[in-house]
Structures are given as structure tokens and as C-alpha cells.
């Protein structure tokens, strides 16, 4: 009977993964990386105001529960006239979140590139922006890959919170099926296995990428 349940629920759960969890994670991560880069650059810019804003942003994002961030964006913003649909709300909240965590990762990676690389860039006549783009960031990319892939793995699991704002993803599917008959233990375990498989795939991709980028730091 339990096996029947697992089998019959696998379809909806995988559907939730494919239709919501994975696209939500991918979209939020892509957008989040852009935010993270911008915030990281603001943070290391000499400008007191910009770096102050970046610090505040990072502190708020990391210091408050994602659940509340989702709630504020979805249920709170309409009070000031900004009504976003569930998917945009989820992507915004999740990517702001990735932006906060990722900014610190990227900042640390940029700072880990030896100062001599900046100087060599300037020496051949590059501006600060040019050196950053062509010399520093490619090297920082390799350094930040492992922590960023951790951020991504967390993100995959965090997408489950999007169910609170009406996105029916993997975990919500499991919950709905479970609430009918009360088989929460079975369905949560099943959902956990699906998350685990997704994360295993991600880890494998990470290792492959790391190997490809390895020349960037081998010196």
C-alpha cells in the first residue's frame, strides 16, 4: 500500500520539480548572480554610500527569514499598490536572497585574487573596470564556484517556501497528497529523496565545472 502511494505520487511530485522547483531555482539563481555581482562591487567600491547600502542590504537579507521576505513581497507590497503574481514574487524574493548570500561569496573571491593581478592589469594600461572584467572576475569565478554551488543547493530547497505564495512546487505537491490521507511521513521522505537527487546532479555538474575552470587558479 505504501509502495502504491509512493508510486502514484511520484508523478505529481516530479511534475512539481520540473514545472516549478527547477525553473524557479534556475531563474532565481541567474538573476541572483547579477544582483550578487552588483552588490559585491558596491561593497568593495571606495564609495562610502554605495558600500553602506550594500552592507545594509546584505545584513537584512541574511538576517531575516526568507519566509518573511516572501511574505512581504507577496502579501505586503500590494498594500503600497504593488501587486505581483506568485511566480514573479517568488523569483524576486529568491533572487534577492541569492544576491545577499552570493554578494559575500563574490566579494571574498574578488579579494582573494592577488593584488599583483590588479597591478599587472593597470601596468598594461587597463582601467579599473577593464581589469576587473578581463583579469579579476575570470579568476574570481573559479574561487567562488564551490560556495556558489552551495548557495544554489540551498536555493533548490528554499524554493519549497514558494508554496506559501501559491506556487505549487515539489514540496507542496507532496503536502497536498499527504493531507488527503495523512501520510506525511512517506511523502516527505519521498520529496526528500527527489531533492537529494537534484542536489546530487548539481554537485556532479559542479565538479565537472571545477575541473574545467581549474587552470584559472593553478599557478
Amino acid at each position, binding site marked *: 500500500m505504501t509502495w502504491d502511494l509512493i508510486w502514484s505520487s511520484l508523478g505529481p511530485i516530479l511534475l512539481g520539480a520540473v514545472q516549478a522547483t527547477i525553473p524557479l531555482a534556475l531563474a532565481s539563481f541567474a538573476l541572483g548572480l547579477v544582483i550578487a555581482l552588483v552588490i559585491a562591487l558596491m561593497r568593495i567600491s571606495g564609495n562610502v554610500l554605495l558600500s553602506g547600502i550594500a552592507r545594509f542590504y546584505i545584513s537584512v537579507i541574511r538576517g531575516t527569514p526568507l519566509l518573511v521576505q516572501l511574505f512581504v513581497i507577496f502579501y505586503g507590497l500590494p498594500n503600497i499598490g504593488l501587486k505581483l503574481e506568485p511566480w514573479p514574487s517568488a523569483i524576486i524574493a529568491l533572487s534577492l536572497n541569492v544576491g545577499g548570500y552570493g554578494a559575500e561569496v563574490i566579494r571574498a573571491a574578488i579579494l582573494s585574487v592577488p593584488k*599583483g*593581478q590588479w597591478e599587472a592589469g593597470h*601596468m*598594461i*594600461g587597463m582601467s579599473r573596470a*577593464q581589469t576587473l572584467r578581463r*583579469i579579476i572576475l575570470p579568476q574570481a569565478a573559479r574561487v567562488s564556484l564551490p560556495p556558489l554551488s552551495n548557495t544554489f543547493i540551498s536555493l533548490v530547497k528554499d524554493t519549497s517556501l514558494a508554496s506559501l505564495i501559491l506556487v505549487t512546487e515539489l514540496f507542496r505537491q507532496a503536502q497536498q497528497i499527504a493531507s488527503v490521507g495523512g501520510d506525511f511521513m512517506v511523502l516527505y521522505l519521498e520529496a526528500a529523496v527527489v531533492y537529494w537527487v537534484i542536489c546530487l546532479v548539481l554537485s556532479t555538474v559542479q565538479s565537472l565545472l571545477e575541473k574545467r575552470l581549474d*587552470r*584559472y587558479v593553478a*599557478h
Partner: protein
Amino acid sequence: MSPTSFRPQSGVFQPETVLRVAGLHKAFGTNEVLKGIDLEVPRGSVLALIGPSGSGKTTVLRSLNGLETPDGGTVTIGATSIDFSLGVRKQARAELRDRSAMVFQHYNLFPHMTVLQNVIEGPLQVQKRDRAEVVPEAEALLNRVGLLAKKDAYPFELSGGQQQRVGIVRALALKPQLLLFDEPTSALDPELVGDVLAVIKELAEEGWTMVIVTHELAFARQTADQVVFMDGGVVVERGPASEVLSNPRQPRTQQFLERVLHNY
């Protein structure tokens, strides 16, 4: 290949003195590191800058290359002259930088680029020159230092001596009026030093104008026209290489030379 590509750039305006430094001052916080440095390097001549650790040699070079902003004094390279006491425009510093090129102690090659990419990055991305012209030039220079076969290798695949020769080629490819070397061999294994010094010596013979910070006194004696000994942010002694190195007049110079030569 044509040896031309190995020759210094010839501009329209050719003063006899390529580098002139006057009254250079620099402090880090309250630490006054340069207390008025004067230098003059004629076209095609080599100046060796020697002195104990912390005496300010690197700071001088970095100031010439626009990596450091002095608090006062003037630097003239070719047709560009900057008076740092007037407050420096970014633009002026960039111009200074364009006229000189530096070879670093730790090479500082770009680890994510091949040897060839390292060399052509400046000419292509900064000087916006034509790839079809830049690549053959770069290959010729690499060939000249015996590294053409390594053009597609990454820096980590090279020995220290090979990396430093790439560092030199990267600087040459910028066709600067002035070449700066900051202890170019001190990070190398002793047997690899020779190759790099030989390349530098050849450059000197070909007429490049150079300032070299070095502890290789035998090399300095052979290669440099002029030796400047710095200590504590001032020039203590200067003169023809053979004179300063063989018959130093100042006690500080004598003491320094003794220590570096480890006379047991």
C-alpha cells in the same frame, strides 16, 4: 623574424633624456618613504637602482608606472610630464603608465590566459591595435626569448624563469619608451636566473631605456650605465656602475655592498 620588433619605440618627439625625476616625495601615512628623489636616464641607457630592503626602490618604480601616486615632485617620461605637487588627474597618471612598462618580481602573469594571450592582451584591449599585426609581433618576441613553442601553454605549465621571460615580452609588446624591472630574478631558482638576465642584457645592448631594481651586483656592473644607491628614501650615492660598485665613497654604500656580497 625581424629584429626590429625588439627595438624601442621611436616617437616623433625624441628628447635626449627619456626619464627625468625631480624631488619625488611619498609618504604612507606618517611613514615618509621617498624624501626627494632625483633621477635622469638618457635614451638607451640603463639605470640600476640598488639599496636595502625598505629603502623605497619599489615605490620609485611604482610611481613611474602610475601604480602609486607620489605626494610631490615631477616625473617626465618622453613628452609627458607630471607635477605631483599640483594634485594628479587620473588622465595624467594613465598617460605616464602608457609610456612605461613594468616587469614584476613575481611575474604576475594572468593565470587564465595562455602565454600568447598574456602578451597580446594590452596591445589588443588597451591599445586597440589590429590583431593581424599584434599576433605576429608577439610571436616574434616570444621566439626571441626562446618561448614560441610555449605560446599556447598556460603560465602554471612554465618554470619561473620561463614565466619571467613571458613577463618581459608582455612589457615589450606594449612598445613603451621606458622599461622598468623590479627585482626581476629574485623569485627565481638560481640556475634560472641566468636566462632572464641574459635577455635583459640583450635588451640593454639593443638600446632600450631601462630602470632595473636588482640585487645581482655582478649583472648590474656589466649591464648598467649608471648605478643609484638608495637608503631610507634618499639617494645616497650615484655614478657610473663600475665606480659605485667597486669603489663606493659613502660608508652606507660600502656596508650594504659588503652585506649583499656575504664576505665570509
